[in-house]
């Protein structure tokens, strides 16, 4: 996987979280982001992003980190 592709995935995931209201409700944004990734992203893309998160995920937004850290306290917070 190229650096360009993971940059793109990170950008898209962050964008999704932001549009799900990350700045208003982090937990809910994480839940919605997780559901969105599950519904619309390929397994390979999710796994690439997950691997990036596992490696520190420094450019991931807080809600996306929460998705992959499994720290969301609401339903659907499990890893996509």
């Amino acid at each position, binding site marked *: *996987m*190229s650096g*360009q*592709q993971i940059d*793109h995935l990170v950008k*898209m995931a962050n*964008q*999704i979280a*932001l*549009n799900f*209201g990350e*700045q*208003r409700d982090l937990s809910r944004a994480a839940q919605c982001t997780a559901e*969105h990734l*599950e*519904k*619309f*992203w*390929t*397994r*390979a*893309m999710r796994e690439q992003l997950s691997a990036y998160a596992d490696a520190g995920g420094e450019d991931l937004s807080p809600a996306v980190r929460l998705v992959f850290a499994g720290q969301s306290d609401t339903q659907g917070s499990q890893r996509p």
Partner: protein
Amino acid sequence: MVQYYEPQRDYGTPAASGGEAVALQIDGIDIEVPAGTSVMRAAALAGVKVPKLCASDSLEAFGSCRVCLVEIAGRRGYPASCTTPVEPGMQVQTQTPALAKLRRGVMELYISDHPLDCLTCPTNGDCELQDTAGEVGLRAVRYGFAGANHLEAEKDQSNPYFTFDPAKCIVCSRCVRACEEVQGTFALTIEGRGFDSRVSVGATDFLGSDCVSCGACVNACPTATLTENSIIEQGIPEHTAITTCAYCGVGCGFRAELRGNTVVRMTPWKDGRANEGHACVKGRFAFGYATHPDRITTPMVRDSIEQPWREVSWDEALQFAARRFREIQERHGRNSIGAISSSRCTNEEVYLVQKLVRAGFGNNNIDTCARVCHSPTGFGLKTTLGESAGTQAFTSVDSADVIMVIGANPTEAHPVFGSRLKRRLREGARLIVIDPREIELVDAPHIRADYHLPVNPGANVAVLNAMAHVIATEALHDAGFIAQRCDRESFASWLEFVSAEHNAPEALAAATGVDPESLRAAARLYASGGNAAIYYGLGVTEHSQGSTAVMAIANLAMLTGNIGREGVGVNPMRGQNNVQGSCDMGSFPHELPGYRHLSDAATRGQFEAAWQVQLDPEPGMRIPNMFDAALDGQFRGLYCQGEDVAQSDPNTQHIEAALSALECLVVQDIFLNETAKFAHVFLPGASFLEKDGTFTNAERRISRVRKVMPPLSGKADWEVTQAFAAALGCDMDYAHPSQIMDEIASLTPTFSGVSYALLDEKGSLQWPCNESAPEGTPTMHRDEFVRGKGYFAITDFVATDERANRRFPLLLTTGRILSQYNVGAQTRRTDNSAWHSEDTLEIHPHDAQERGVSEGDWVGIQSRVGNTVLRATLTTRVKPGVVYTTFHHPVSGANVVTTDNSDWATNCPEYKVTAVQVSRVSAPSAWQARQQQFDRKQRDLLERARTDA
């Protein structure tokens, strides 16, 4: 069954709507018609033909020709039947000696100034004047041609599609009235008085005038004054077939009129529900591409794009492609191949492509060009209303009191609906336009927008939120509707969000660029002006917040109760002819036909049982995912049907690199398009005239496409896909597209009542069409939303990353022009290029002056990802800080400049916002020079294939 040619029936005056029945007698025949019906129409309905010249049922009665006179018992004189409404008990005589004498006298006067060249006249046998002369028994003209006459009047042959021969004009004004009443352009007038009266296009000729070449005047002309050049050159058609236009999402019904297998004319079908007898310059005239010499009709293969093409048999080409695809999958895994289908293709074709991918490729890597136009509509409307489709029929606009057009330009991109909309505006409906440009509707003949909000590109969501803020905080919302029809919890959260001060028009003014007072006034009008309908287009969807904007539009409609009845609603203006249909047919990688997600085991099970294969429950790749993965080496084989991604998708250089990285690109198209220049296998496609099928337009209307000539390549597209599937070991066994539709109906609840037999009977059907709605559904969400309660999604305004700055100070937005269609593959191969031979850059005079740019100068347009060169057009239609162009010509490279930014939910590209700098230049861009070189090389490789064959 062959339909022999005859003119479409004309009842003389339009139908009266809904009045009480009036009983009368015409020539002794009893008949009942609605009050308001003319005597002429009543007679036609009774089977009695009254001679006429100036009347047509597409126009309001005019009463000028004096041929349609009748006698009415108890009345003096001879009233014109076209302008006389029926009355109870009326006794009408249409044939009496006195009437015959009067009519002959009138006809004699007409013919006294009309050339008697019927045998050599292009409309001989299809001329109302000729017919009427026969009907009234005209046998001689006493006046001769010695006196003053118009027989030497000069023809106007400037329009490439029709000729104006004033020598044959009887000044009935039908053309002038058609231009006004039907098209709404007001390009024609009657100039002069008495003997000097003549039809005029102003000071210029037809081509140089305001005429938009819709053909309404040609349709209306009862003589050979306005005649299609194809008829002049080839003669009157001898048989006809009803079919559906393959251009925009209006989906006009047409009568293909033929001599043998040659289409000599396309006339708008009067019974076509989407267009009701009207057309535009594309559908009416621009069909010549179907037989253009550039058509490729023999399959071709090559091992690399550096090699010449080799013409081969169908079998060899399909085996070549199948072998390559299987080899790729063996080496790189099941998910290393995929397909892109096109909204230009029929429902049956795109259904087969997604079936091939899911059942044959064994993955879900299927996407469609709706990805790059209306995918946010699918997401946004599904989320809020529960169904990924517009809510109304086109006729609904006839009942609208307030029309809001946002990010759409109907008079250019959906012209037949644009004419209907303009007619409603002339009747008095109010208009709000939200667009960075001053589109035609803002200020057109007899139309002026009440409010034009010139939003900054990228700020639609801010404007829509601000409108909702005004409505909510000023208590203009429909509380009853919301309480009854909408989800209480989501509304409460949304209300709190939208009422917050940061959503006020004043707070958002810097972002929107819109005067807060105008915005407040527009919001008040939308909320309280009666039936309010929203029409939107790609200017809404093609943004990084496209899905949010669609949801904000749905919120506005629910907030004000403007949904679920005639005259209101949320109406996405679909770009291509079958955008709605291709989405309906499961062409997105995450869902099966009927918008059902792959993860739904029950639905998946139905398809597995029908197709006898196990389906992958995981979503596949979207188009941009495919290109990213191609560059990463994970995606190596692509079957691209009818879509020109190399020209239409954003960041051209990125697309070209991805296509170049593929091991096997299979392109199915009618021309060697830009994408095909990167292909290894070329499968010749069929135009819409060469195949059977259905298209579904923007109002969910399913209409038949009928084969009127054999496929030039020998195969219709559905047959090619079926043969490709067979080569891959995925057997399909359809003998006719009707069987494919039967399968769609059996597996898709919203289509369960659809069949070719019912379509033939009804003409067209709007889905859902099933047990609950056996004749279809013109208006959706009447009693409840498809999802149950309407959902108010919170619509944060998240500004795009694509910002103007000192280096890129202008915002580029893109759009379309009337005469060209999308990438121009079809229209560039017609005479439509007479109106638009190149794409230009619209720039405000202030911005031009700052850069020393004058009208017609070559200018470089530099964005963060690329640059291109176009000629400049100085205009105040764009505001300072905004520039605009179209993308109809490959060499323009508009998408070399657009970026990878995309809608957060769907990855629909952000075509509408690109930060650029513009400067005067004297040479094409480096990309353009490369593109021209590559184009020459690929044409040469194609020519060598043809020479070797």
